[in-house]
């Protein structure tokens, strides 16, 4: 899926959900504020009613205005209170803050309430008449703190912000993970596509090489037979040149065989066999090809380790590694070690030669890549191909001046 599509299918719905959540949260807060204000208004009305009744009672008792306010003021939520006469002159007042009694007698109307925004927070104010049995008339001016409401709204806002933050964070984490997943998927797709193209190319090369090999080998066979016939009919003093020609033709045929086998797909003839046998077979083939080199071979294998696969092909792969190691170290020993490692089988071929340059280590298993003057770049490529066909891995480690190590890991039987 392309990034644009990911955006359309995931990110936009997320934004929509977030938008609706924010809208619902905003409306919820507005509703909460409205309800709380109504609640506070009711509470203030009730408080004012009680206070008015109390004031009326104290007036009946003949208490002074100051004395009355002294008696009724104890509620911490009352910021200020004033007792006014019939002409709205302030008879007595009381405030939590020095000289603060925000009343405009010019504008004040009976039973009028309002909200005053002060640095100490919102204050709900109300001017109401005190009911008296006689003709006397008094007013009570009350300022009630809305800190409870503000705290509740602030708490609601904080909770909403926290939830929004959490949603955003979760969304960010989700999309980060999604994008990472998608990037990984894209990388894998690209890798798979490259691999597919590589295989395609390899198949084409393989078909082409097989065709060429076939076409060359036919005349080579004829040439070889011709050399055989000529050798039989040629006097002994002239045979040397013909022998050389025959050997060269055979060399060409061998090289073509190797190239052909390198490009052909590996077909396993599977069986169960012992690791020891594979190593011994490879060592025997090495001895047959290069008796001097085989004297430098040191074998250390764990007995009784069983493998499943094509033993002959594996010995071929091992032989290629051994030949490579022998060529790399002209006089020092070459070690072959084999052992079981949990469910896997490990084979190491180690030499004490000059080592492989770092830039070459990564390429040693590429076809036709070689650092040797007379190398074909087929041996290690073929070894890798055979090991991979067995579900195993092969890796090269080397340090210049300290030798190299090739490690094969195969599934155990």
């Amino acid at each position, binding site marked *: 899926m392309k990034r644009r599509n990911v955006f359309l299918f995931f990110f936009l719905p997320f934004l929509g959900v977030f938008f609706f959540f924010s809208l619902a949260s905003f409306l919820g807060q507005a509703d909460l504020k409205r309800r709380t204000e109504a609640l506070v208004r009711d509470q203030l009305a009730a408080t004012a009613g009680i206070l008015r009744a109390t004031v009326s009672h104290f007036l009946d008792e003949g208490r002074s205005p100051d004395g009355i306010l002294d008696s009724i003021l104890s509620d911490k939520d009352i910021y200020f209170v004033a007792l006014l006469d019939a002409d709205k002159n302030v008879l*007595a007042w009381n*405030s*939590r803050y020095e000289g603060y009694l925000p009343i405009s007698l010019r504008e004040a109307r009976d039973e009028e309430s309002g909200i005053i925004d002060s*640095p100490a927070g919102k204050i709900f104010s109300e001017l109401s008449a005190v009911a008296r049995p006689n003709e006397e008339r008094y007013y009570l001016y009350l300022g009630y703190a809305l800190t409870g409401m503000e705290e509740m709204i602030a708490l609601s806002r904080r909770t909403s912000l926290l939830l929004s933050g959490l949603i955003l964070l979760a969304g960010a984490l989700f999309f980060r993970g999604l994008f990472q997943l998608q990037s990984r998927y894209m990388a894998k797709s690209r890798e798979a596509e490259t691999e597919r193209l590589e295989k395609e190319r390899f198949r084409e090369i393989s078909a082409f090489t097989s065709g060429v090999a076939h076409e060359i080998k036919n005349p080579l066979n004829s040439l070889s037979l011709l050399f055989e016939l000529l050798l039989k009919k040629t006097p002994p003093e002239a045979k040397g040149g013909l022998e050389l020609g025959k050997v060269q033709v055979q060399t060409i045929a061998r090289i073509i065989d190797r190239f052909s086998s390198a490009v052909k797909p590996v077909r396993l003839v599977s069986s169960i066999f012992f690791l020891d046998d594979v190593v011994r077979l490879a060592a025997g083939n090495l001895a047959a090809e290069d008796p001097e080199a085989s004297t430098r071979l040191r074998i250390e294998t764990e007995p009784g380790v069983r493998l499943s696969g094509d033993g002959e092909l594996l010995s071929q792969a091992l032989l290629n590694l051994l030949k490579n190691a022998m060529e790399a170290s002209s006089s020092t020993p070459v070690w072959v070690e084999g052992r079981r490692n949990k469910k896997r089988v490990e084979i190491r071929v180690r030499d004490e030669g000059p080592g492989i340059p770092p830039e070459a280590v990564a390429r040693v298993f590429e076809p036709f890549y070689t650092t040797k003057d007379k190398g074909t770049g087929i041996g290690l490529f073929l070894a890798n191909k055979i090991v991979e066909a067995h579900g195993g891995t092969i890796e090269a480690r080397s340090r210049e001046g300290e030798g190299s190590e090739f490690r094969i890991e195969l599934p155990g039987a």
Partner: protein
Amino acid sequence: MSNKAVVLRFLAVLVAGAAAAQPGGQFYNVDKEVRIEGPVREIILEPRYKGTAPFLVLGVEDSASAKRYNVEVSPSWFFGQDIHGGEKVKVVGSLSETPRSVPTIIARELQLRGETFKLRDKRGFPNWQGGPQRKRGIRRFGSS
């Protein structure tokens, strides 16, 4: 600080003791805002509201009417400025008059040496008080 200012401050301390017994009580009446301008004639420190620190009160002679006013500024700790007798001030505040005493102005803004000091908001809320977090008990009252 001039000698005159030092003397005024000394007098202020003396007056503060005597003024402690005076009943406080004016509130900031938004309907009675006035502006005056004139020299400081007296500097007084006296308690104005029950349970509070002494207030700085300036005796100011209005240049326009030659009338004397007591200007209630703020708690002395809040108004952290040097002030000297004879210095000119401009005051915006709420006027409170009683028949037998010097009229008092609760200052909202005070201009001194070209600098304006905001002492209360337009409804008279004192600027030396904290915001909503600062909860205090009711302890100041008075009668008009």
